[in-house]
């Protein structure tokens, strides 16, 4: 009976050990990404197969882009608040409200322009094929109504 028990335990132990080893090996890259200072950038590096130099260039672009992006967002939010207050106060579409709406639309257009410039710059810092893949993916995420080859990728992109 000792021999049978030993084999039973050995089988269960090997199954548990094999499970743990493969699970930890399969999730090691994801754990490493989550532990990095900017997990989303670590993911970008891994997903779009960048080398260290390309990754450093993209980090630089990212750091330069973020403060401007935040400032534009803050402006849009404050303009939205002003517009809401004016609409609540007048209850009509006055020339002043029209002007506010135009300003907000202009701010959003500027924001989208800068965003697109950033995406193009990032895609150019990547290996060519990966850059195109990145551009298709990020445009599908941020400009859902855009057309062309990137538009076709809108619903088919499946991140592995």
């Amino acid at each position, binding site marked *: *009976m000792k*021999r*049978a028990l030993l*084999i*039973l335990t*050995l*089988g*269960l132990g*090997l*199954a*548990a*050990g*094999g*499970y*743990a*080893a*493969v*699970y*930890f*090996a*399969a*999730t090691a*890259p*994801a754990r490493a*990404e*989550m532990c990095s200072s900017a*997990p*989303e*950038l*670590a*993911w*970008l590096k891994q*997903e779009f197969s960048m080398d260290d130099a390309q990754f450093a260039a993209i980090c630089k672009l*990212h750091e330069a*882009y*973020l403060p401007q*992006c*935040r400032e*534009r*967002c803050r402006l*849009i*939010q404050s303009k*939205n608040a002003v517009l809401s207050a004016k609409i609540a106060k007048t209850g009509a579409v006055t020339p002043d409200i029209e002007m506010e709406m135009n300003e907000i639309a202009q701010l*959003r257009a500027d*924001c*989208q322009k800068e*965003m697109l410039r*950033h*995406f193009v710059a990032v895609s150019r810092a990547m290996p060519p094929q990966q850059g195109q893949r990145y551009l298709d993916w*990020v445009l599908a*995420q*941020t400009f859902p109504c855009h057309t062309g080859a990137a538009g076709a990728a809108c619903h088919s992109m499946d*991140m*592995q």
Partner: protein
Amino acid sequence: MNPGDDKSLQEALAKWKVAAPLPPRFQDNVWRRIERAEAARAESFGQLCQAWVERLFGRPAFALSYVAVLLFFGLTAGYWHGRVDRRQVNTQLAERYVQTVAPYRDIQ
């Protein structure tokens, strides 16, 4: 000759009466014996199983197959679970990246 056909024997048996008293705690002893018999039967089933397991794992081919199958299932389950978790983390990080570079999506 069949004893059932012997009329004199049947008459003698019909007239026979047992006068001797039952031994003390007769019923208790009967129940105890029944319990002991049932316990012995249960034990023998366990022993049967044990012997079966021993015989099964005594065969090297079966023991090896058992270990190999369990190992295979462990590895497959680990791979599958890891893959699912990794995909989930990747989806979260992709969403986080988009959120970082295009936060205006949420302040329409």
